[in-house]
């Protein structure tokens, strides 16, 4: 258990709804859910959610902290915004899902090797380091996310696409060795540092 996680357990005891309201983006909306189920029924990825959106809201209110925060459900959201458009009560469901995922990640409770979460990490590392995304490296990292042999299998499965991309100069193998960066790397680093400060400030404000 991370320190922050322990601190939050201490702070909110059994009132998980309060914890969500204080720490999760748009979390104050959770109590507004009337359990009609339109969000879950409208979600294009619905069948792949361990707990549908409406169930997550009910679980939050029922205090099922561990189950919610360690669930892979909210990581399934593709931000299509269908649920927000359809919710009869105007809950910003997409944002709440992202808020829950982000909070779970901060607490160290997000499921390990969840592809969306992993992709987020890889994407962030790439862009933070070079100021721009190295698509080849991201692709390779994702292929090898679940071990070497699976990675080889993944790469072989997409080899035709890869060859075609190289042929049309959409991808260059040399990118793997460093790749090109943006001009003002230190500027980017400064900007990210400032953004992180803002975020930390924001989170502390939430946490109060």
């Amino acid at each position: 258990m991370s320190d922050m996680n322990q601190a939050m357990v201490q702070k909110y005891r059994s009132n998980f709804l309060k914890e969500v309201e204080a720490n999760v983006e748009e979390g104050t909306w959770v109590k507004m859910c009337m359990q009609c189920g339109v969000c879950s029924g409208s979600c294009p990825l619905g069948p792949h959610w361990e707990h549908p959106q409406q169930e997550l809201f009910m679980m939050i209110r029922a205090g099922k902290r561990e189950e919610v925060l360690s669930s892979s459900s909210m990581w399934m959201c593709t931000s299509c915004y269908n649920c927000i458009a359809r919710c009869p009560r105007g809950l910003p469901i997409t944002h709440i899902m992202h808020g829950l995922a982000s909070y779970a990640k901060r607490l160290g409770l997000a499921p390990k090797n969840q592809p969306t979460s992993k992709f987020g990490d890889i994407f962030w590392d790439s862009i933070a380091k070079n100021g721009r995304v190295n698509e080849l490296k991201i692709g390779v990292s994702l292929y090898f996310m679940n071990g070497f042999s699976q990675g080889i299998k993944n790469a072989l499965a997409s080899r035709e696409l890869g060859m075609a991309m190289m042929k049309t100069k959409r991808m260059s193998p040399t990118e793997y060795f460093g790749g090109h960066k943006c001009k003002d790397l230190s500027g980017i680093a400064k900007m990210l540092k400032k953004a992180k400060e803002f975020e930390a400030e924001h989170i502390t404000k939430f946490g109060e």
Partner: protein
Amino acid sequence: MSEVIATNQTILVVGGGISGLTAALEAAECGKQVILLEKSPSVGGRVSQLHKYFPKLCVPSCGLEIQYRRLKANKNVRLLTMAEVTQISGEAGNFTVNVKVAPRYVNENCTACGECEKAVGAEFDDEFNYGMKKRKGAYLVSNMAYPQRYVIDPRIVATDDGAKAKAACKYNAVDLEMAEQNLSLNVGAVVWATGWKPYDAAKIQPYGYDRYSNVISNVEFERMLDPFGPTGGKIVRPSDGHAPKNIAFIQCAGSRDQNHLKHCSRICCMATLKQTTYVKEQLGDNCKSTVYYIDIRAIDRIDDFHRKVKEDPNVTFVKSKVANIVAGSGDNVVLKGVDTEGYNRYANEHDLVVLATGMESTVPAGVLPAGIVINEHNFIDLDSDCGIYGAGCSSDALDVNRAAQNATAAALRAIQVVNRVAGQEG
């Protein structure tokens, strides 16, 4: 038309549905002068289109008949049909009301013999039956129409059919020269009772009301039960005219929804429960009913009705707002969603879907004077000094019972205003 006499001690009631009739009669029976305006050719409103009332399951024509008799017997009420208010100005005790009266093209001589109807050929969508059947260009709104007087559709007046209708009338009742009239009335108080209209189901895009013929609205379902209605009283699928075997009722279709009507329409739960009894009575064990709901709002004594319906083995309740409807096999449709009792994902095929569409207020914009508060749901808020009072479904989404109570209260407020005027003048 004989002259309409109004003074600032007159009460104007706008709308001749159950609320307007009630308000007008209560005030008139207290000795007040009342002018009752109705936009359509007959009074009776939405109630006259119902098959049965909940929870007693008695027929609305019974209550309407009583109101019509009271109306006929009371000299204090002046009824104007086909009349619409275009503007109200002034203040409590002294309003000026502009009224537009559309021509009926049939005068008081009409005996409702029906010869003009037989003579004309052109047919139009029958408004009384929500366009589910056709009516002639010369018609009586319904068998219960009050006044019992025919109407000539303006679309046939200048055609051969118009001349045919005139020629067919033995009583010299058809007057094709009739023209629109504009009246200006001076009244002391106004009771606004223009009622409701069913929410346009086609706006609920995922339910496919406009795409699937077997997705209908609850008011259309109600019309099917009328022996003189579009299906001769039979519950049928619009696609093939066969009796359905597996009906779905979808609650809150357009109500309690920020994308549609924000308010709870209050009647739809009971209307659906009532309609399951129609299914039971007519189709028995040959048809199942499934009610998809967020929560059933049948409160107080009407919960007994809910419990009774729940005992029927042919009625199932699914706690879920249906997410969307897609085409199924043949003319069937498939309802998709996730239920709240177990979070099970379902895709259920039904051969008829009834959308329990809600009540949309018909309070118009720009007609009432400034200062009259129309709330976010388009109902008139109560302000006891303003002289204009919403009654029935112009004040809130109400069932018939509550609408009549509410209309009586509105009449009392209007009476207080004209009494005040009388006191000042006396």
